[in-house]
């Protein structure tokens, strides 16, 4: 994935705010990349641009050979469904669905697997994040760390090439944060995916293969 000269500007009624300025970077598979920087520096904005949830004002984002800035909203949604996985600071699990049902959601939407295959894969993913005994539990019946691990399993449901995480350990205790951090590293190194995580946590960033530091919307170190 290559990002070239990407700028994201918000036009207010009177002022213009530049969230990301002339950002250029490459994301490689099997790499765990950390984006760091102070609050309000544009870390999350850059992540949302990488995750195709937002469109750049200028610049290009080439992902797996596709120039994504030209894609329609529907094509972007399909791209996200097939190629990207998201993990947020808060787990954002659907509260009425069990852990397994939450993990199945992206698979159901993609519709490539049978119900049986979806269930088997969801169970396997939950087992891989150490939640084999929480499969039928609702989010409210699990701890924050467990919910976040379900969210990781959900992000991996459609075998994405790129997993994007926005402060994935921000809401977790030290033990849970360490578990999540290990899982993300494994996703990059063992499963061969690209993982990009925005973090404030220096310990978390220290174990990354690559670190991108951003200040005032500009990439300072890469």
């Amino acid at each position, binding site marked *: 994935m290559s990002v070239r000269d990407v700028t994201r500007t918000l036009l207010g009624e009177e002022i213009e705010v530049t969230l990301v300025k002339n950002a250029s970077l490459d994301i490689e598979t099997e790499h765990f990349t950390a984006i760091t920087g102070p609050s309000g520096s544009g870390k999350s904005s850059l992540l949302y641009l990488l995750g195709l949830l*937002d469109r750049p004002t200028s610049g290009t984002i080439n992902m797996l050979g596709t120039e994504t800035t030209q894609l329609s909203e529907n094509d972007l949604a399909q*791209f996200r469904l097939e190629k990207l996985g*998201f993990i947020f*600071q808060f787990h954002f699990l659907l*509260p*009425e*669905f069990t852990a397994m049902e939450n993990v199945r959601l992206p698979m159901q*939407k993609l519709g490539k697997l049978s119900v049986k295959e979806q269930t088997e894969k969801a169970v396997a993913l939950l087992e891989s994040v150490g939640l084999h005994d929480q499969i039928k539990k609702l989010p409210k019946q699990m701890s924050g760390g467990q919910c976040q691990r379900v969210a990781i399993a*959900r992000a991996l449901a459609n075998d994405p090439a790129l997993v994007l995480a926005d402060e994935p350990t921000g*809401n977790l205790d030290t033990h849970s944060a360490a578990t999540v951090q290990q899982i993300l590293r494994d996703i990059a190194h063992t499963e061969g995916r690209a993982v990009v995580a925005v973090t404030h946590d220096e310990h978390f960033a220290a174990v990354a293969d690559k670190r991108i530091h951003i200040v005032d919307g500009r990439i300072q170190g890469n």
Partner: protein
Amino acid sequence: MSIFFSIAVRHILSRKRQSFVSLLGIIIGVAFFLAISSLMQGSQNDFIKRLIDNSPHISVHDEYRNAKEQPVQKLYKDRVVELRSIQPLPETRGIRGYKQVVEDLKRRPGVRASATLTGQAILNYAGRDNSIVLNGMIPADMKDLTTVEENMIDGSVDDLISNRNGVIVGAELCRRLMLERGDNITLTASTGQVRTFKIVGIFRTGSLDYDDKQAFTDIKRVQAMMNKSNRANTIIIKMDDSSKAQKLADEVEAATGYKSVSWQEASEDIMSTLAIRNVIMYTVVSAVLLVAAFGIYNIIFTIIMEKQKDIAILKSMGFLAGDIQWIFIIQGCILGVAGVIFGLPLGCCLMLALEQITFEPPGVSEPIQMPIDWSAPQFFIAGAFAFFAAVLASYLPAKKGASVMPVQILRGGQ
């Protein structure tokens, strides 16, 4: 189960009490819509049935719709001709060659026709003159073309066949003049001829005026009394399919020249009044469902406000705006379908209850039951309208739900 349906159901179940109240609104709305529209349609059907059954489908009168064209007008078609003080020749009124016209009509399939001669007569009784309308008919046709036989409370139309001097009168006249079957009455025609008739039958239609003023006897007796031998002033026609009356009336008028009035034409003002009444009725009952639809709007709007994060995460996952909209429209559909499923049986109960009510309107001597239309279209209209209202009520908030921008919501976090 479709993923959209699955999410929609879970959303509704997540707010059980509020969903139930919205559903209850639709159920009651459907039930009232069905009961009221069935009652109104039933009364309309009953009214039209009485209108059609109690009078001929077509009446051919011994008059012309437009004044006859004068020979001078025929001669100068493209000129302006003014004629003054035209005096028609005195002639005996009546339909010329009525027997032939009746025979021709009877040859048509599904058409029954008979000639009648109607005139005024005076019934002198106890020093008082009572004006009545004497209807002269062929007794055999009377059974087929009028409702006299059905309304008989004493005697039969057949008695007119055996007794050519017989007459059938209304129950109100009999009550007023203390007459009974078998009594003789003396009638004086406008020609001055006086004849004595024997009451062979008494009918009651429920309309006091009709039961007081109308009398039926053999056409030949009326022709003799009115000095109109071999004349009839009206041909009455009944058809198996009354809806085709207008077409036949036009044909008869074109063929004979005499004014032929179908029941539709005769009741044009009533039919338009009924149409206006229907518009008012559907507006009122629709308002009930509209209020219920606001309940659905409210619950779905609340769910959307509550589920902004869910919508954002679904969109980030790859769900399209249309998918999100569809999820909330499905919720409206579920509430609408459930409302129809439970509302229609409740409506049936209301209809059954309404059917039990009997009342006696002024001027009618027999109690009347509430007429209810149980036909399928009533159920279909009520169900379809409720479903449409529910879908529309969900469409508006669903559109708002679909427009949620994931980035704005996800930035907010918990």
